[in-house]
């Protein structure tokens, strides 16, 4: 095991610790007939590339060794990640996927617009692929760019079942480059994903090795004095939450991979001085959000989620789970550069080298400071950090005295069965603004609102699904007072009664704007390090918006959870208990996501584009996965141009069982 080159990592307020940077030898090389001859650790640094329009993919178990311990991965064609698939826009591809596992498998073509039956979600779009069975996917490729594929069965994605897709455009590529590399980032654990999930369920902070200590408290008191420290800690203590809870699963168990290579393995890409190099970054992690930079190089972002954008030059960008970004770099010196992808919580990194000579390496930088959450990340009014400001926030952690008031289990949901939110003019209801309410008045408020909503239920939209016991309360629909296309939501924030249950531990009462925010841990990188960091507001589509219609309806959906119980949901309702969200074929709707948690969630809609409203209606960027900042809201438009049943979910693997909806286009 090569540990000698492990860098020294200095993290403020965190004792120096070693996280797993892996073994140098290429993993996933053992026992593979195709690569049995690989003697050198980096003989095959990247997965093989398959081209054409006919592909045979085999999903199999594969012994791997990323950390010095042998484990079993779920591989595609014997490698982790699976092969890079290169398609051509305009062609029809046929993919024969054979399952050699003892369990069902599936492949979902992430970000590819295709018929529902080819989407690869067991239980929604097809039946899954049984052991020994071959399923043939066939669809026309009507887009170009960088995408990826992964299993939608069980936790196989965490076990290695993913790979990249590069689609060459039919027209000449507007991005000219001399070299073109896929950079697939992922996370690997020697623990089984089921063990990870069980541990999180039993102790939500299991993998958080940055919990507050007495030492922190002492230095905080020395810095700010007792009174201020008490004030700052008070909210977190009362809410029973940790401001250092940035990632659920961390470098405590993860080894971060770049193209299947550990940091010690050091994946390498070559260039010649003066060449333009296109790097196609894909975040194929189960749970890890990365911040990417290449010290010494500016990166020109040319595509986001496969779609060409107006080039933006930055020093650093965040890539959520399942997102892709293409960047072009032009190294002018004859030196090596480190591709550095540190995780959002700075508990580890993936790393590779861009170099003119295989012997040359660049320094691996120290990780940046590890962020702590602020009141802003709780969706609180951050104009005042005093207690007055906090009354605007709803502490759902009830203390024992008023628990009775808060328990909504006694509500007769049946009474609300006939209620349909879709037609209401919420905009005109001043009473909907919860921001000024304290806990004591909360339960009373809800009732009065429902009465109001019920009586005002004219002009209903009857597409809501038929589960009266749930009261049609999943998502609030607005049809009036909608903001202009491309400019985002005007609608008030409405927390439904289903959000006031044991499965929801906080609600953002004054969610911030998730558009201009580079995200937790990046906000001060400009002033602190002089790095320009990409935000969603910087992204502009290269070609004009195709569907210029105004949205006719708006769906406000809340991302909810309880960190303590490790439960995740939308509007406080888990997938198991949820009805589908119904869309009418051809309609243009707006989805506004409100993040009522302190985690950053990458939300992925299958089958249709999520057109991010960045304030410029002419060049709306099209994405398949949208990062929703904690305590923030963000809006995007969807043209429901694909019949069928589609998955809509948080792409953090261990949030998926709950934070998931079916979207049905009828």
């Amino acid at each position: 095991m090569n540990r000698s080159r492990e860098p020294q990592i200095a993290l403020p307020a965190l004792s120096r610790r070693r996280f797993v940077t892996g073994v140098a030898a290429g993993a996933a090389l053992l026992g593979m007939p195709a690569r049995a001859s690989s003697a050198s650790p980096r003989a095959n640094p990247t997965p093989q590339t398959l081209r054409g329009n006919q592909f045979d993919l085999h999903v199999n178990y594969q012994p791997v060794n990323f950390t010095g311990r042998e484990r079993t991965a779920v591989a595609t064609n014997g490698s982790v990640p699976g092969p890079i698939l290169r398609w051509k826009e305009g062609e029809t591809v046929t993919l024969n996927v054979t399952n050699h596992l003892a369990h069902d498998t599936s492949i979902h073509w992430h970000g590819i617009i295709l018929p529902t039956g080819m989407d690869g979600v067991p239980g929604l779009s097809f039946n899954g692929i049984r052991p020994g069975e071959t399923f043939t996917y066939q669809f026309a490729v009507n887009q170009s760019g960088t995408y990826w594929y992964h299993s939608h069965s069980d936790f196989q994605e965490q076990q290695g079942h993913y790979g990249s897709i590069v689609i060459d455009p039919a027209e000449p590529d507007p991005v000219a480059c001399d070299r073109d590399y896929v950079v697939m980032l992922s996370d690997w654990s020697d623990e089984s994903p089921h063990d990870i999930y069980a541990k999180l369920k039993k102790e939500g902070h299991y993998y958080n090795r940055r919990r507050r200590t007495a030492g922190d408290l002492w230095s905080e008191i020395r810095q700010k004095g007792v009174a201020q420290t008490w004030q700052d800690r008070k909210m977190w203590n009362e809410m029973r939450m940790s401001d250092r809870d940035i990632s659920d699963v961390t470098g405590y168990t993860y080894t971060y991979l770049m193209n299947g290579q550990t940091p010690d393995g050091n994946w390498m890409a070559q260039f010649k001085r003066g060449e333009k190099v296109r790097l196609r970054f894909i975040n194929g992690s189960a749970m890890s959000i990365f911040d990417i930079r290449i010290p010494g190089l500016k990166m020109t972002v040319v595509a986001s989620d496969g779609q060409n954008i107006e080039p933006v030059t930055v020093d650093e960008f965040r890539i959520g789970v399942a997102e892709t970004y293409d960047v072009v770099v032009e190294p002018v010196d004859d030196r090596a550069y480190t591709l550095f992808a540190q995780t959002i919580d700075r508990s580890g990194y993936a790393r590779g080298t861009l170099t003119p000579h295989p012997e040359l390496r660049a320094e691996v930088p120290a990780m940046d400071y590890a962020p702590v959450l602020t009141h802003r990340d709780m969706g609180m009014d951050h104009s005042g950090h005093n207690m007055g400001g906090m009354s605007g926030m709803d502490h759902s952690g009830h203390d024992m005295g008023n628990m009775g008031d808060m328990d909504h289990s006694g509500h007769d949901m049946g009474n609300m069965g006939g209620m349909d939110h879709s037609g209401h003019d919420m905009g005109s209801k001043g009473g909907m603004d919860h921001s000024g309410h304290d806990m004591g008045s909360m339960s009373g408020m809800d009732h009065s609102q429902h009465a109001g909503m019920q009586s005002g239920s004219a002009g209903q939209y009857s597409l809501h699904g038929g589960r009266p016991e749930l009261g049609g309360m999943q998502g609030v629909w607005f049809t009036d007072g909608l903001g202009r296309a491309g400019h985002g939501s005007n609608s008030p924030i409405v927390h439904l009664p289903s959000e006031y249950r044991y499965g929801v531990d906080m609600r953002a009462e004054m969610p911030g704007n998730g558009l201009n925010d580079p995200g937790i841990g990046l906000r001060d990188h400009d002033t602190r390090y002089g790095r320009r960091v990409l935000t969603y507001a910087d992204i502009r589509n290269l070609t004009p918006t195709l569907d210029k219609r105004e949205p006719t309806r708006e769906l406000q959906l809340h991302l909810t959870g309880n960190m303590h119980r490790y439960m995740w949901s939308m509007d406080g309702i888990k997938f198991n208990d949820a009805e589908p969200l119904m869309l009418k074929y051809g309609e243009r709707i707006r989805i506004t996501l409100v993040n009522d948690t302190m985690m950053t969630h990458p939300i992925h809609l299958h089958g249709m584009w999520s057109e991010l409203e960045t304030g410029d209606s002419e060049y709306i960027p099209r994405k398949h996965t949208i990062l929703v900042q904690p305590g923030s809201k963000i809006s995007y438009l969807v043209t429901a141009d694909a019949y069928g049943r589609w998955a809509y979910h948080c792409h953090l693997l261990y949030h998926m069982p709950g934070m998931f909806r079916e979207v049905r286009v009828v």
Partner: protein
Amino acid sequence: MNKKTLLALTLAAPLAHAAEEPHTHPPQSMQGDEHAAHQHMGHGKPAQQDASAPAAANLRHAPNEPDHVMDHEVLLTKVTIDQLEAREHDGGALEGSVWFGGDKHKAWFKTEVEQEEGEIEKAELQALYSRAIAPYWDLQMGVRHDFELESDSRNWGVLALNGLAPYFFEVDTSLFVGEEGDTALRVEAEYELLFTQQWILSPEIEMNFFGQNTPEFHTGSGLSDIEAGLRLRYEFTPQFAPYIGVNYEKKFGNTADFVRDEGESTSETTWVIGLHAWF
């Protein structure tokens, strides 16, 4: 049968099952069922089994785990050993719990056993149904059985509120009602103070109150006793942590009188060494 064969058989059995009959759900039509999304959809086509040798070799690595991530609520079992410790003067204690269930409904078992001077002084077991009622609180109902060693055993009905209070105090409050209508209340609170991620100091307190005097059990009405502990543990992993500490017990009021009548002391401080673990 040697150990290896046994192990091989144990491993092979679920695999064989998985390979031959991975699903018991019958095929279902995709349309028509409004809630089909919540169920596993079954399979339209029978599997074409590939019985070739490489496939079989490949299956050797197969884990025995479920198939779909999005359509099941996981049922878990958590075993917690809060304290498993030796105390001074030939004493010892076990305090722990087991729960089984999902997010909302759980079956809970709690136990406390205490040993003094080599003899078991107290042993009780609670079996409870637990239901999540608020983000941090579970309401629990069930029965408690005391294994009395010098006199008869007794049974209690239990109503408990268990959870995390603001400022991260773990609280377990239980109201007990005995067969004869006697009542008791127990309040337990525990806190964790991290010196580092591994060194954790955990103060805790338990208070017992009774609604009546029961001389045969040496309990008097009102506040009967307090047990306070301070334990410093080292978490080798979050699941395995040996500790050292000190435990203090004091009896009050009528309880203290009963104990004094027996010629025993009403308070005791002991050093302890033990293990905190869960899995």
